[in-house]
């Protein structure tokens, strides 16, 4: 089945591993991702923080391109893009706001857009847990994860439609379908400090340290995430969090698509695991899938 696909800028730069693993897992599930032609940046936090209509116009240009594709659903892996696209689509339902956003565009936007949803929800809608389980080649039963969604994926609930805004459970159902142990992680929707890493490092360091500390105390093998910014704050910026908390974490932080990809038998290379700052080798050893004996994997 074909899905229109909006990758978002992060997946093209800092998070190419998210992109690679998303594409690999979707292919394994029979989901054909058709990238929007000439898509542009959704504006991320800076655009909506500066002006709602500027943010909406940047998003609507993409939604308008998506409206001209064959698909009924537009998927994106990034919660921040998802949030912006969904807020923009909602904004366009108000005629006054629509007129002001259209004023910023080359041509007025289409009157209807395809539904926008996360890759994670797209997977769950495409195949149920049983079918997903039937496609695994390698059980993840040796691994224990802390699921971490970040603050944007499930909030605000009426726009994101991702289940309980403080206790989403979709990632758990996907990972347990691959036989992983997934703990109840109380900070699963806490904020990691978002885009403040550059202008106010103490914010991200402090908030990320809280999440890393709890996961460490719970003795998980990895934190599993769905957001490129969360991944960067928890992984690449982990030394800054360690400094703020005056401790060492050494906690691997994987995308959920990388975890699923391991279950589907993809090689660490196909999933971009080498991009992680904190190595996932400890997980691979437990799975017996060391980079060295990746033979037999896809």
């Amino acid at each position, binding site marked *: 089945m074909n899905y229109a696909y909006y990758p978002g800028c992060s997946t093209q730069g800092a998070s190419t591993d998210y992109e690679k693993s998303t594409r690999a897992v979707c292919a394994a599930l029979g989901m054909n991702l058709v990238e929007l032609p000439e898509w542009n940046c959704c504006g991320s936090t800076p655009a909506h923080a500066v*002006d709602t209509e500027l943010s909406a116009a940047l998003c609507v240009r993409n939604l308008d391109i998506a409206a001209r594709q064959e698909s009924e659903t537009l998927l994106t892996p990034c919660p921040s893009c998802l949030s912006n696209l969904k807020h923009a689509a909602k904004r366009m339902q108000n005629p006054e706001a629509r007129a002001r956003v259209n004023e910023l565009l080359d041509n007025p936007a289409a009157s209807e857009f395809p539904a926008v949803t996360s890759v994670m929800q797209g997977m769950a809608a495409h195949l149920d847990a049983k079918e997903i389980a039937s496609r695994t080649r390698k059980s993840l039963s040796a691994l224990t994860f802390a699921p971490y969604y970040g603050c944007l994926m499930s909030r605000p609930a009426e726009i994101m439609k991702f289940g309980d805004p403080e206790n989403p459970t979709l990632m758990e159902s996907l990972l347990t379908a691959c036989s992983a142990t997934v703990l109840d992680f109380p900070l699963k929707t806490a904020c990691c400090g978002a885009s403040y890493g550059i202008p106010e490092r103490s914010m991200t360091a402090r908030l990320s340290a809280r999440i890393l500390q709890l996961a460490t105390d719970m003795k998980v093998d990895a934190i599993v995430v769905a957001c490129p910014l969360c991944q960067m704050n928890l992984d690449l910026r982990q030394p800054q969090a360690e400094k703020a908390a005056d401790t060492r974490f050494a906690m691997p932080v994987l995308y959920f698509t990388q975890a699923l990809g391991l279950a589907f038998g993809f090689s660490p290379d196909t999933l971009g695991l080498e991009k992680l700052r904190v190595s996932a080798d400890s997980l691979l050893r437990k799975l017996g899938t060391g980079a060295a004996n990746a033979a037999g994997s896809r």
Partner: protein
Amino acid sequence: MSNITDIRLKRDAGFIAEVEAASGQKLSTCYQCGNCTAGCPAGFAYDKQVNRIMRGAQLGLKDDVLNSRAIWMCLSCFTCSLRCPNNIDVAAIMETLRHMARKKNMVSVRKVEKFWFSFLNTVRAFGRSWEIGTMALYMLRSLRVFTDIDLAPEALKKQKLPFKPYVVPNGGAGAVGRIFKRYRERADREGVRP
């Protein structure tokens, strides 16, 4: 907010209406339970906690609220909106206040705004954001040596930072540039800071 006379003098009824219209929220429904503040992850960096911002807005204390540091340190995480017993979208109010403060050039934490524009200028130029460009512009604008220099070796080794921006092809970058151009022109026409 020192005493009653002070509050009466500073009260700006037009401001209350403006915040309510832009955010779509009713300020008078806040009864100061403090739930928003209890759950706010950024509160440690605020000068006024978010329930005090709500109270200030409710009373029409425009300058107090728009000059606060809090509205710039807010992470837009929506925890406050989620936990407000009166279903006030508090995060939307924080965002509205930020927009109003920007438009009136009352930006109390300039570095945050500088970061946003460093990012947006790469989008305006190329149609997509570009990490290295954002960082370079931010260093120039804030005149500070890049605070993340400790991350650079690792980020470069892992090839997380493309050296060249991706330019959206087939006129895409131009179309995005024109969105920014029209946005600026309209702000000028309307007499607000873009």
